[in-house]
């Protein structure tokens, strides 16, 4: 009964439909950049290792992964173009209110990042026989810089929406007063670092997972083993770093958006010595939790570095805090996956280092973790973005005030079209990646030309 009511309400509501559409778009989009931002640097590493050693195994690894990169990049580009239009089609109030700030940040992303990566991508993918080797490596470097710059600008804008600074309001419109304060707003450095490392983890687990899959399918070659080792080693370094940066990011959020942290921790009443809840069912109607599994004082200890520190509860922000359950659960999913990653990366790396050969159970575990980065990244973004509600720009503009006047039927129509398209593309993507991995198993170790090159390289 409740569900039918909710559903009919949803369908008649442009705001809710637009939110679902934007969430679907951005969730679909982030899957691909979160791979390519870091994968490009790993590709550059393979290419440089090849340039330095002449060992064809690095080129083999590069060749396989550059195909995955190209496909992933294309999906990122096309889903990103969709985003740039949706600001206007679905959230006109957003640009009308904060366009003076959001506009230039997006503009710098296009100017400094998109053209750089798109143009040099052509040379990186198709130019290896047309340009000197150094120029090709340089092109790969430019693509890597471009993708990271893109992350820089878009995360700056997102962080500004979370923690806006450096502006003044005149007649309901935001005007910039200090660009430095806008770009480097308080939450930006933490969010950027957190996202870049998340990308590193997503790419490294993808690489490890697919390489392990190839080895399990009987691939006798060196390249997947090199890629597996590289993926697990990167993950082993980045997971603890991510725990550390994530903690700093949490402390920053606690300072600037306490209502978001209260929802993450499921704290209703302001408390000294709040427990860390391993599990609970937050109930917004009764404003309390059910089935709590608490660890005493731990939340206070983490957030204030004092077991009896104060955490302000949701009741202090009534009517002005995000929906609790989605933030609460998404946070636990993110942290849970993070811990699994930590265990997998360390045990896996230790195992490879000790035994030199990989056992089937370990390979299977790594395969199971192939797309763990996607889940953790999405969960993390849900914490961040649902946690920003009811605001679109904290304290400046609510999501409801920014929505389009377009009829719900039109939004419903476009939403259905996008959902069908995205479901189809996601399946096609996963299917194609699997196919590429299987095809790679059949390829010979090296072609004759490569071995000649290797021996020459070794002599030189």
């Amino acid at each position, binding site marked *: 009964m409740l569900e039918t009511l909710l559903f009919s309400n949803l369908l008649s509501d442009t705001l809710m439909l637009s939110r679902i559409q934007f969430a679907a778009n951005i969730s679909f989009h982030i899957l691909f950049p979160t791979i390519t931002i870091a994968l490009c640097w790993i590709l550059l590493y393979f290419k440089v290792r090849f340039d330095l050693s002449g060992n064809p195994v690095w080129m083999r690894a590069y060749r396989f992964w550059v195909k995955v990169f190209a496909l992933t990049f294309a999906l990122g580009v096309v889903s990103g173009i*969709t985003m*740039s239009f949706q600001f206007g089609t679905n959230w*006109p109030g957003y640009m009308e209110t904060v366009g003076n*700030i959001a506009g230039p940040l997006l503009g710098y992303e296009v100017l400094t990042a998109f*053209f750089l990566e798109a143009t040099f991508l*052509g040379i990186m993918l198709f130019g290896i026989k047309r340009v000197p080797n150094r120029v090709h490596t340089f092109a790969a470097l430019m693509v890597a810089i471009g993708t990271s710059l893109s992350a820089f600008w878009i995360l700056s804008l997102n962080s500004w929406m979370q923690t806006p600074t450096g502006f003044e309001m005149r007649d309901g419109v935001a005007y910039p007063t200090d660009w430095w304060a806008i770009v480097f707003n308080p939450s930006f450095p933490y969010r950027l670092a957190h996202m870049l490392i998340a990308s590193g983890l997503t790419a490294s687990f993808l690489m490890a997972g697919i390489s392990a899959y190839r080895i399990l399918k009987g691939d006798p070659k060196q390249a997947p083993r090199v890629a597996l080792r590289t993926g697990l080693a990167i993950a082993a370094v980045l997971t603890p770093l991510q725990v550390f940066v994530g903690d700093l990011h949490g402390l920053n959020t606690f300072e600037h958006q306490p209502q978001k942290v209260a929802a993450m921790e499921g704290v209703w009443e302001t408390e000294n010595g709040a427990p860390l809840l391993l599990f609970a069912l937050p109930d917004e109607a009764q404003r309390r939790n059910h089935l709590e599994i608490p660890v005493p004082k731990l939340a206070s200890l983490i957030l204030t570095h004092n077991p009896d520190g104060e955490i302000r509860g949701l009741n202090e922000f009534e009517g002005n805090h995000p929906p609790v359950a989605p933030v609460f659960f998404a946070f636990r999913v993110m942290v849970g996956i993070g811990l699994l990653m930590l265990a997998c990366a360390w045990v896996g790396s230790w195992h490879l280092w000790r035994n030199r050969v990989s056992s089937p159970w370990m390979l299977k575990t790594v395969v199971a973790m192939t797309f763990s980065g996607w889940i953790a990244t999405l969960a993390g973004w849900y914490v961040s973005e649902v946690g920003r509600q009811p605001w679109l720009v904290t304290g400046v503009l609510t999501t409801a005030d920014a929505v389009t006047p377009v009829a719900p039927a039109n939004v419903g*129509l476009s939403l259905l079209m*996008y959902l069908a398209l995205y479901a189809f593309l996601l399946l096609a993507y996963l299917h194609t990646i699997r196919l590429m991995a299987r095809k790679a198993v059949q390829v010979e170790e090296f072609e004759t030309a490569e071995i000649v090159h290797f021996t020459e390289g070794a002599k030189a």
Partner: protein
Amino acid sequence: MNLDADVLATVFVGLMGLAILVYAILDGYDLGVGILLPVRADQEADRDTMIASIGPFWDANETWLVLAVGILLIAFPSAHSLILTQLYLPVAVMLAGLILRGVAFDFRAKAALDHKLAWDRTFKAGSLITTLSQGYMLGIYVTGFQWNWANQLFALIAALGVSVAYSYIGATWLVLKTEADLQRRAVQWARSAGRITFLGVVSVCLTNLWVNPHVFDRWLQMPLAMFVLLIPMLCFLALLGNDMLLKRLPKAGDRHCGVPFALVILVFVCCFSGLAFSFFPEVVPGQMTIWEAASAAESLQFILIGALVVIPAILLYTAFSYWVFRGKTTELHYH
């Protein structure tokens, strides 16, 4: 540097115009190649060559669209909101088209062989959906978002016209980049598309003068008319000259194979200048001028400094990329 808001608005509408023009030319030819793609199962070799001819460029070409929409959003936010909410459904359809062709390009090279033809057809369909919806939006836009049957008809004609114009530039791109049998067919495509483009340009000119009295006055006002009427004259000369040249292509030693492409660029520049001259300074015809729509001077100032540094760099490395892939198209390998 301290420019006032009115000057900044003019500078930015110029930049936006440049971005739209470059987009229409660059993505125009790769969309056109997509539309022209033959879809019979036994024509796979042709499809491979045609797609290889645009492979290294399509991604950067599409970025000009993002830049154009970006400038509209940065410099004229209220116009951006107005235009995009008015064009809600056609924009969604265009995006679906762009998504389909973008991914089809990559999937075709990596999918199982029996799916390759399906992805090629998707590529063609995606290209056509994109160009039809762009033309439709252009038609609705220049008639000031009036939703009556006459404007709908005009928009539908514009949809076909833009698609044919893109096929025209795409075909001349193929004349430049391909050889032998495919090149000969591209010459034929270019001739047919050129003639239909001619009809399209004439009908858009006449309709524009007929439905917009102030546009009529502006074009025929002496003494300015003596100069601006050069624009349509140049356009028709280019179309005519191209038709005559194409009749004699390919020549021995493949001489003049790049001239048709250059002439079509000239046609595009003329058409674009004509439209810009008709409507400047209105950013939404009949409803909003650039000065009403412009955003804060401090924001435009901030982005202009960056744009002046970065746009020359973009043009430089774009030129470098075209230089790297100069000459006839060779087989495309993801090494």
